[in-house]
């Protein structure tokens, strides 16, 4: 159908070069193709399993993935950005990985036992695992990763492993001993930051500057082949992979395509197979009716985009003022005009895609009259000009979703007499102003509380998080109940028990309003339907293409 359209367009451009008859024939054929193509396209609609009947995986195929920027380097422990994780998730292995519901599935660890007190975790390791350079893998590599490299270079390490006492390595197993029960260990062991690194390459060197960061050696399904920085990175199938008959793809090529529109066009034309997280919502809406492409945005990190009030500042100190702002903002309008209804409004600090989301939290409806009443009751009457008080609103200019949200917030708050001035600046400047200098009245930001909120909550909303570090409690919120519930959740091993604690935390936060949740940003990925099992992870952070195969 694509060929027909192109030929048709070509003929239209040079009608004088063709006879009239040929021209009309071309238009007619094109029209016929459109008519017939309709039902054919419906049969090939995404999600119905594709054309034809081939359902058994076959080997072969080149998988081209578009990223927005080059990876700085390929060491997932020292370079903690998604552009590093996407390729290194294929080159290295973790002890476990996660299924669509964020349940751990065996990987390098084939099975595990957790002691009832939650302090001892025993893993049985896979056999016959080799590094890409042929050297044998062993528990020494695990110990190196968690005992030597982790404490010095991983940003997630102290969060998860601060109570690690020792690691034992009896034959074929590895055992982690903790001083305190660690509720969240299984939720983080599969994190890209904990990909197992080769001791024989990194030990005794500075992992930050080791050459292997540009030519990595892992145990994973794909091996490093070549890297033309800024342009493309090629990985080839590891034919001696320890999981038999896997992977299926011959190679994966990562291409750097900074322009989102160009990347979407490339996906449609088949020049790329997979587009990571950058499909603009308006294009995603359009792609839903295009056959041959699937779009999706699973997220276990469950971010919400919030309005942060600086609780040190005069009007915002008052709960009534925050409550007024909470019901003055028009959330459905944000979702509709910015995200083209591809996502949902937010009801709390944790997004609806998290297994810990409290579904009893109500939908927050806009009520301008009530907001005005609240502000009057708080003592902030309108002046002659109609303004009650001014506020500045800081936002990162380069993130489109944030910047557009700021615009809508400004308009919404004008309706209740709050005069908002938007201060949009580049990333580093804005981060510095919000976190280091606390120089803001309102800020638009998004906190990643997932996958396991108990670990992240102290930094973003805990009393100990008020420390002027980056990504800390910039609002100055302090509530002892939230602090102690969080600490309890960290020690709770059973998932359903943690759920109860998280419910209470979410309720308390929505009562105190140290943040005003707006909507849930989505990061939409897309892939071509001829590739099966292209997105089996619960979030793009954990994406792994071991079981992806190319159908017809």
């Amino acid at each position: 159908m694509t060929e027909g359209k192109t030929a048709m367009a070509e003929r239209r451009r040079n009608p004088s070069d063709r006879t009239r008859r040929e021209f009309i024939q071309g238009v007619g054929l094109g029209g016929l193709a459109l008519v017939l193509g309709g039902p054919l396209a419906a049969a090939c609609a995404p999600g119905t399993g594709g054309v034809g009947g081939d359902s058994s995986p076959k080997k072969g195929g080149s998988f081209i993935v578009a990223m927005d920027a080059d990876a700085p380097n390929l060491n997932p422990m020292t370079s903690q950005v998604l552009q590093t994780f996407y390729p290194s998730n294929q080159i290295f292995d973790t002890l476990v990985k996660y299924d669509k519901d964020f349940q751990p599935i065996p990987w390098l660890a084939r099975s595990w036992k957790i002691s009832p007190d939650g302090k001892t975790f025993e893993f049985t390791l896979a056999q016959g695992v080799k590094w890409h350079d042929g050297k044998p893998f062993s528990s020494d590599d695990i110990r190196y990763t968690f005992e030597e490299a982790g404490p010095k270079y991983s940003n997630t390490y102290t969060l998860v492993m601060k109570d690690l006492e020792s690691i034992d390595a009896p034959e074929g197993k590895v055992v982690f001993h903790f001083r305190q029960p660690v509720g969240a260990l299984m939720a983080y062991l599969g994190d890209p930051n904990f990909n197992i690194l080769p001791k024989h390459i990194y030990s005794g060197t500075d992992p930050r500057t080791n050459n292997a960061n540009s030519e990595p050696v892992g145990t994973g399904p794909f091996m490093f082949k070549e890297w033309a920085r800024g342009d493309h990175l090629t990985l080839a199938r590891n034919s001696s992979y320890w999981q038999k008959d896997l992977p299926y793809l011959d190679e994966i090529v990562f291409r750097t395509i900074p322009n989102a529109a160009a990347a979407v066009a490339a996906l449609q034309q088949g020049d790329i197979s997979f587009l990571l997280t950058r499909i603009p919502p308006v294009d995603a809406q359009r792609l839903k009716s295009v056959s041959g492409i699937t779009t999706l945005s699973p997220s276990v990190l469950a971010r919400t985009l919030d309005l942060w009030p600086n609780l040190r500042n005069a009007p915002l100190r008052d709960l009534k003022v925050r409550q007024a702002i909470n019901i003055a903002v028009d959330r459905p309008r944000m979702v509709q005009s910015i995200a083209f209804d591809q996502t949902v409004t937010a009801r709390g600090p944790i997004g609806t895609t998290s297994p810990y989301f409290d579904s009893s939290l109500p939908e927050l409806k806009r009520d301008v009259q009530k907001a005005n009443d609240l502000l009057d009751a708080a003592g902030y009457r309108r002046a002659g000009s109609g303004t009650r008080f001014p506020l500045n609103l800081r936002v990162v200019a380069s993130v489109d979703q944030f910047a557009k949200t700021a615009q809508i917030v400004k308009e919404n708050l004008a309706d209740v007499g709050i005069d908002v001035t938007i201060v949009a600046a580049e990333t580093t400047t804005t981060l510095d102003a919000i976190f280091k200098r606390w120089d803001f009245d309102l800020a638009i930001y998004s906190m990643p509380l997932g996958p396991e909120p108990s670990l992240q909550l102290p930094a973003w909303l805990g009393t100990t998080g008020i420390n002027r570090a980056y990504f800390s409690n910039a609002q100055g919120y302090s509530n002892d109940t939230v602090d102690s519930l969080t600490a309890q959740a960290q020690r709770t091993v059973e998932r359903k028990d943690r759920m109860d604690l998280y419910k209470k935390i979410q309720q308390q936060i929505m009562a105190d309003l140290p943040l005003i949740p707006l909507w849930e940003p989505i990061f939409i990925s897309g892939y071509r339907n001829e590739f099966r099992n292209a997105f089996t992870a619960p979030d793009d952070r954990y994406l792994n293409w071991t079981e992806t195969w190319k159908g017809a």
Partner: protein
Amino acid sequence: MSGLGWYLARRVVWAAVVCVTAVVLTFFLIHLAPGDPIGILAGERSTPEYQALLRAQLGLDQPLPVQLLRYLERLSRGDLGYSFTYQAPVATVMASRLPPTLLLMGTSLAVAMVVGVWIGVRTAVGRGRPGWSLVTVASLVGYSVPAFWLGQILILLFGVMLGWFPILGMTSRIGATGIAYVADIAWHLVLPALTLGLIEIALISRLTRAAMIEVLAQDYIVAARGKGLAPRRVTYRHALRNALLPVITVFGLELGWLVAGFVVVETVFGWPGLGRLTFDAISARDYPVITGLFILVTSTVVVANLLTDLLYTVVDPRIRYG
């Protein structure tokens, strides 16, 4: 030592002073910008302890003068330091980005010189004729137009609407070799080279035109014509050679602007060269890379000006130094 030798020695010393001053100034200037690289490097999950650790590992916890001294000490050993974002030596990072920039620079400059000089000569010789007046106006517009605007317009017109050229990057076909590879790059080169080239053509043609008009009014040109020399020979062999002198001067001075133009054009077109590296490094506050780039630019401009001055002795035999 000959007069030229002393001249060169003085210039080299002066060049070194300029470069070192630029480095020191740059160092303080970039630290004046709010924020530091730690936020982006450490990531959203990082603890305050990790951020402090990272800061110490990168030497950013030291007072600024101490950091500067350390940097200068490494520089004297020829070490440009390590990039924060790429975690590789700065020299390596810059070297890997140099070829695309040289390609873009060489192409646009070569085209601009040839076309610009030709237009300059024709509009000077054909002064008054309506066709060439239009070209003169067009060159004024071309020179005034901002590079990022022109680039985006070209992308919109030729890339998106007409679809004749790719809209960004240096290559599209992965694994292409030989002729196919060269052709692929050439195809991507057109729009960015055109953006820079058009602006350069505008400048060069105007300079050449102005210089040519002045030279063509000189007595020796009248004499040459009187001797019966062919007009073409008068124009190119006698007039142009003298007209080129001021063109070369101003062009040498414009080199600084060209650098800025490269940052803009490479970023707009996603061209993986030094210009885009500059933009990315500044956004990420990658101080070693930024300083390394400034050193490169400063030394290039200084050397270029020196070469320009030496070129005078070739173009105009009357000029001698020493």
